[in-house]
């Protein structure tokens, strides 16, 4: 048993001769908001897919919420929440029906589903939309709703794969407030993002380049280690070493 919420050691995934994730080692503390950064195709999504148990690692190991992702996938699944890049609620079901469905799948009792539904709707300001079809509510709310649904069963760790893609700045701001609240309540959050301003909100970040971890630490530590003013600069230096020095 590890007391870390996530503990990955030398985690590797190859597709044929292509190494998508190359021996990454990191851990996430309980209640920590951990940012997973990297260019498109750097291996962020592949890494997450291994941690949530839909993709087997080629080598290396990891525990999530104290359970081995290879041998105890069932226990891991019960203790994690996940929100994918694609919007993952059913558009033709109502807000309430979506919540009830996921609650049922995760074994949340009927009583808890009722109380938590109320909490969720109040939290994101959708009190009057419980009976509305999900396709009828604005994108920003859908994303927040998807996040809350992923937290419905009170998971130990929640994985967010680019949760704020295509969302307006105000909603992004609100979304990050939700993330903070979640971390403060003791749930670890592993979030991938392209927005470097969002990375500054994370307690710690790791930047992936070509499948490997190129930098890790608090945003301040990473900036300092790379001799850069902003994370933007860090990112450019790491992903485009030639032009990054000039920036």
């Amino acid at each position, binding site marked *: 048993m590890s007391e870390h919420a996530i503990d990955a050691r030398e985690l590797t995934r190859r597709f044929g001769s292509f190494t998508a994730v190359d021996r990454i080692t990191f851990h996430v503390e309980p209640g920590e908001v951990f940012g997973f950064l990297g260019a498109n195709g750097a291996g962020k999504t592949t890494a997450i897919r291994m941690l949530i148990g839909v993709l087997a690692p080629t080598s290396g190991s990891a525990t999530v919420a104290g359970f081995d992702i290879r041998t105890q996938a*069932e226990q891991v*699944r*019960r203790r994690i929440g996940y929100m994918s890049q*694609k919007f993952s609620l*059913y558009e033709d*079901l109502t807000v309430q029906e979506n919540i009830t469905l996921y609650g049922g799948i995760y*074994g949340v009792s009927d009583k808890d589903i009722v109380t938590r539904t109320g909490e969720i709707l109040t939290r994101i300001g959708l009190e009057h939309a419980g009976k509305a079809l999900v396709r009828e509510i604005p994108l920003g709310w859908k994303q927040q709703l998807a996040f809350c649904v992923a937290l419905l069963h009170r998971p130990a760790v929640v994985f967010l794969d680019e949760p704020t893609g295509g969302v307006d700045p105000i909603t992004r701001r609100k979304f990050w407030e939700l993330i903070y609240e979640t971390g403060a309540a003791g749930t670890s959050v592993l979030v991938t993002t392209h927005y470097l301003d969002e990375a500054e909100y994370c307690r710690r970040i790791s930047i992936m380049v070509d499948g490997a971890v190129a930098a890790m630490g608090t945003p301040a530590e990473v900036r300092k280690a790379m001799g850069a003013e902003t994370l933007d600069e860090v990112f450019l230096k790491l992903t485009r070493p030639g032009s990054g020095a000039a920036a």
Partner: protein
Amino acid sequence: MRAFLGFVRKETLHLLRDRQTLAILLLFPVVQVLVFGFAVRTDVRDIAIAIVDPTPDVATQELRERIAASDRFHVAEVRPSVQDLDLQFRRGAIRQALVLPTDVERRLGRGDSLPVQLLTDGSDPNTGGIMQGYATAIVERWYRETAPSGGALRIEPQVRMRYNPTLESAHLFVPGLIAFVLTIVSALMTAISIAREKETGTMEMLLVSPIRPRAIVIGKVIPYIVLGFTSVLLVLLAARGVFGVPLRGSIVLLLAECGLYIVTALALGVMISTKAPNQRTAMIAALAGLMLPTLLLSGFIFPLDSLPTVLQWLSYVVPARWFLTIVRGIMLKGAGLATLWQETLILVGMTMFLLANGSRGLAIRLG
């Protein structure tokens, strides 16, 4: 169990909320029965026939009346010569022509041979053959009854068609239609519905959750099993109500076999959806891979005996072929399990194989 029931409920809601698709799925079987019943008939009626009668007399008058009295024919014209007959065929004004010799009555009286020519539009060989048969029958009957008996002993076969005495094509196509409709409703719709969840990303959410892939598949197909049964009943009711298609065997056995075939089709749909990345691929794969064989290689439209040998072999792996034999057996011949156990066993075997394959495909989860 609660998670599973919730899942079935959700799947049912998808089906009920998509009103257009649901309406199409429920209307489809009935429309198919009507289309096949009224439009795609292989029995021919109202054939436009021209009679070439160079020297009209009492005997030819009698023949003309017999032809006109048959509901298979209407006499488009009576003409004295074969001139321009070809043109009439090409214009489509007539589909058959009966060319009589001169002096018919006198020849009959003398007991001479009677050279009668029957020309038939053969551009559709099937109906052509059928029209030829009808016309020949009338002419022969007329000849026998009009010509004075020559004393020679004649053997007259009395032909009677078993199981479908009036050769109603509706009796033959309804079983095929059941197979066709079930393939569409079950296989196509399951394939699309699983592929849709892959496409929208909700499948990923389900696979990350503790619900087991097997439960996902079973939960998904249950509403379609119900829908499949509804379709079968609609087809049977429409076929009986509109065309009087008989059901001579046991309805319990028929529904049980339909249930078996629904599972076969669903397993096919699941297998397609595990391979197809999105709805479009799933749809094309289901249409090309399932609907065409169901139409062409099952004996539904083309008799299996007339297929090339290679295609006949291929038809052995088409589940619809076996199902069709079963349904025709039950509906038209009143056959029971004692005669149909082989086909049933083959279908069970195929279904088990497909189910094993399909659930393995999903057990791999998302590649």
